[in-house]
């Protein structure tokens, strides 16, 4: 009984992570100081002539260009064009690559058959295929969504396969000893056990989606953030160009944090390695 109460206490201690306001402030400062410094340098460098302000305008100029574009709705139309394409391609990749990966991971025969071709596709840079996509699908939405889909598929597919293959055999043994059906085993053990590794792939795909989309938009598009950046460069709208780049960073951050939040929700049970 003494041992139990000892265990109770230690487990309680584990959960007693009280939030100290001073510590929280300290953490905030620590996390934002380098970022702030970066913006300060960006502001000062062009003003004191360290870089040519014509090509590298101060941060305040970029920010005001960004604000004006936001008010004129110009930014929103490009932003929504990009986000629609990336979400469409990304969503399609999730919808197809996860079920496919589960099946390939589960059946050794599928794995053996498909592995060589998967390796080949995975190592084909998506952007190298951009001309092919444009030739086949034109320069409309389809080719852009298709290339995002292509780029997102591989990390999701390969991580899903790896996730299924690396489920702790003891968990499978334990579930099998309870005489559950193959379907239950898959649905109640393999699937939840695979989620963390699957999410690594999904997050990689999220980053890839933006990267590939912007490049595709720079080459052939009539709207979208990638198009906007090259367009403003050609027309020497330098502050606007930087504002476009900044918007892409924000888009990337939103997607990444969104996925992180979803991952946290789905794998609440996992031990946070940073604690």
């Amino acid at each position, binding site marked *: 009984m003494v*041992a*139990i109460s000892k*265990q*109770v206490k*230690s*487990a309680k201690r*584990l*959960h007693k992570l009280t939030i100290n306001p001073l510590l929280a402030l300290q953490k905030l400062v620590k996390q934002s100081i380098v970022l702030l410094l970066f913006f300060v340098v960006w502001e000062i460098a062009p003003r004191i002539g360290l870089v040519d302000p014509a090509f590298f305008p101060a941060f305040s100029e970029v920010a005001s260009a960004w604000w004006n574009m936001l008010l004129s709705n110009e930014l929103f139309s490009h932003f929504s064009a990009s986000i629609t394409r990336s979400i469409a391609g990304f969503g399609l990749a999730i919808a197809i690559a996860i079920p496919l990966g589960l099946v390939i991971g589960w059946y050794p025969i599928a794995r053996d058959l498909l592995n060589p071709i998967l390796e080949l596709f995975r190592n084909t840079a998506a952007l190298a295929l951009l001309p092919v996509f444009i030739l086949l699908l034109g320069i409309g939405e389809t080719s852009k969504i298709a290339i995002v889909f292509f780029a997102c598929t591989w990390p999701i597919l390969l991580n899903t396969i790896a996730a299924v293959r690396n489920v702790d055999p*003891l*968990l499978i*043994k*334990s*579930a*099998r*000893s*309870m*005489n*559950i059906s193959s379907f*239950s085993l898959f649905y*109640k*053990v393999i699937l*939840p*056990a695979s*989620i963390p590794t699957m999410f690594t792939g999904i997050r990689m795909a999220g980053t890839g989606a933006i990267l590939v989309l912007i490049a595709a938009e720079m080459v052939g598009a009539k709207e979208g953030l990638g198009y906007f950046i090259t367009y403003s460069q050609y027309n020497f709208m330098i502050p606007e160009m930087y504002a476009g780049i900044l918007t892409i960073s924000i888009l990337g951050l939103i997607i990444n944090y969104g996925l992180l939040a979803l991952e946290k929700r789905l*794998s*609440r*049970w*996992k*031990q946070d390695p940073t604690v």
Partner: protein
Amino acid sequence: MGEKIKVDRVTKTFVVRDSDQKGARKEFTAISNMEFSVKEGEFLTIVGPSGCGKSTLLDLLGGLSTPTKGRILLDGQEIKGPGLDRGTVFQQYALFPWKTARGNIEFGLEAKGIPKREWRAQSDHYLELVGLKSFADRYPHELSGGMKQRVAIARSLAFNPDVLLMDEPFAALDAQTRETLQSELLRIWEKTKKTIIFITHGIDEAVYLGQRVVILSANPGRIKKIVEIPLKHRLADADIRSNPEFVKARHQVWSLLHEDEYAGLYI
């Protein structure tokens, strides 16, 4: 007491890679011609050196593999596969990390097809039995090793199997927690009247828990001897390990395990 389990001249061989010849395969005998039976409600411990086929035997009893020769009977019926008439507790707990303590226990209830509205009361009952009622909503990573094993025991008991198979369940725990769990297991056994087959490395553990101890020898695994442990009222004596009866039984098992001239091979 009737006969619950009969291990009837069981041999289990595997095909393994031959270390002497590259690419060649050879047959490896994990268990050879093993024969013993377990009485209804008995607590049987099995002790033996590494390589005596303990885990193989447990897999066979669990129905996760089938004997190469011989058969295993449970209530007179040959074991053909896994079933909820047997519950297994593994050394590494094997809890589902995405489920809470309660969720893990309810996994077994669900497997048995018990209606959902009864889960709560049942899981409460078994959490209480292992002393973890206030930890129902903790995930495994939030529990200590001893607590995890309590959950695993509760999970196996919850679907109410006749036989509890335990594969070195306390081997990964520290000495103090182990002793606590050993006496709790005895208490649970007395309360639930389950037939328990408990595999262990530890001589003390085997003698303390088992009404009979099966001593195995290795390479291939076979039964060396089955020893009756005449201890009564183990829970009444707080320091039963100092009891002369215990010491005598312990020495007997120790001697049997060490009398081989190959003793040096067993680590």
